[in-house]
């Protein structure tokens, strides 16, 4: 009986989980975001993420709000959060720290001066 109740309870939960926002297909004139790491290849310790923002035709975009979140692809490690860097010629140098060797998933969110938002995730391997 408790089992049944729980199942019912969970089924109602399934009903109310917020649906994930649909991934928009990038418009042809959407801005571009590229990620480079310093040092390259990435290794455990202090580092910097070089994020380049350009318009679709290659003009640098300055003045965007950048936030970065690095998760390991496995459970059990704290994420690394960073962001808020000044840019020069569309290149944002975000201070970062790789806390463990292994596979990372970096999620970059950029809010452009015109209010548009770009989210990009990049997988990369970090050496110990």
């Amino acid at each position, binding site marked *: 009986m*408790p*089992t049944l109740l*729980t*199942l019912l309870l*969970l089924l109602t*939960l*399934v009903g*109310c*989980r*917020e649906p994930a926002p649909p991934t928009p297909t990038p418009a042809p004139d959407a801005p571009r975001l590229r990620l480079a790491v310093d040092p390259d290849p990435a290794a*455990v310790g202090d580092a910097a993420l070089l994020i380049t923002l350009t318009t679709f035709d290659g003009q640098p975009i300055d003045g965007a709000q950048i936030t970065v*979140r690095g*998760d*390991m*692809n*496995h*459970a*059990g*490690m*704290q*994420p690394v*959060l960073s962001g808020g860097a000044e840019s020069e010629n569309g290149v944002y140098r975000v201070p970062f720290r790789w*806390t*463990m*060797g*292994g*596979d990372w*998933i970096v999620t970059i969110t950029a809010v452009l001066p015109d209010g548009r938002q770009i989210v990009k995730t990049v997988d990369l*391997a970090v*050496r*110990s």
Partner: protein
Amino acid sequence: MIDVLRLPLIGRILKHRRGRLALQVPFLLIALLLIYDGFTGTPLAAQNLATIVPWVHFRGFAILVLLLAGNLFCMGCPFTLPRTLAKRLSLSGRRFPRLLRGKWLSIGALLLLFFLYEWLDLWASPALTAWVIVAYFAASFVLEAAFSESAFCKYVCPLGAFNFVYSTAAPTRIGVHDADVCKSCVGRECLNGSYSPQPIILIDQIGVDGAPTKAHIHNKTGVPGCGTLLFAPQIQSNLDCTLCLDCVRACPHDNVGLFTRAPGAELTQPDAWHKRYDLSFLIIGLAFMGLLNAFGMIPPVYALMSDLIDALGLRALGWSGLALEGIALLTIFAGGGVVLPALLTFSAASAARALTRTTHRDSLRAALTAFAPAFVPIGAGFWLAHYSFHLWIGFFTIVPAFQAFLLDHRIGILGQPNWLLGGEPNLTLVGLLQTLALLGGFIGSLSVASRIALRLYRRGSFLGLLPWALLLLALMLVGLWVFGQPMEMRGALFD
């Protein structure tokens, strides 16, 4: 010796007819929650409860609780809950096939689980982890429905096998208060169950006023007997005991208790364990798997896999990276989890026999199985060092993940997740504790081995101990090397 079940409050709760349920229902709810989040939540393992709870918290607490208290995880195991349902459906009530009634299936299941864990990166995938939980429920239900005893727990479940082995180091064990009561016991309810369709003649104890002080009731409200077929007055070991306490509830004489003892007391007790190869290789194999599982997390494993693939000339086949990785891992598991333990322990046993000139007296099997208990402490040390590491560095990650889960369902009572909760873990301290766990395990193993050698070889005990001590030392040194490497959390070798 204290009978935990006669302690004031806790004893009452544990012995209550629904006492086990009180532990199982919360565990069941958690399991269902994990399955749900695993299938519907974020695919990011670091933020999903389905990957955090089993691989960080469950594993860490499992080994800690086993060593500190006993097999509480089997006691609370939700996979056996469908058992009651399955039992009702069960028609045949056949016993498990005789050929499979040993630990070989458990050993295979353990190897399979660790292999899949490594190969498919289970802890990087919430959905796959949820499938593993579903598979557990399904397998336990099917086996329970098909056979009369708790076949899944006793012969198959890899988690159960792990718990059985390391609960032998626990400070508690089921036993009886008065062996004489058992000698004159008619029903043997602890084994047979207190419900019997046939009327059994029982003499109830008559009180001073002429009425029975306690009456025996045989009806459907009775309790099943031991699911893994242990007989309380004969129990010497925690092996196969799921701590379900059915025996305690079934005994009409209130004779069964959960007694405290010196931790690991049974490891040096002469006839606590059957001298069987399957059992011995479960214990020895688990110690090796403890090393292997940790080895799977350090950089040299990737180099080794790469070398193996080259050496076997597999790249020419043009197979996918996943297939190549699978073959390399299979080779490592077969080597390190099967061939190496068998080879090394057979060698140690033969050497000990030759050195002590007992080749004619002892069979190789007797010489090998006698030392199996010595692999419990060192194995426990490996698992403790490894899983407490993950527990330590990932302990707080469950809090923001749970907050995020609730927010996902528009429940804001716990507030916004703070993903940096707990701060950065102190890795130097963890490293120190790991070293302590390894050394403690090694010393424990050495002392168990020396007591076994003394019993077995008397005056020749030093020579009889030597090969085993060297093997244990080698294992510990490999352990120190493995745990001295930086842990990595890497997934696929080739993408």
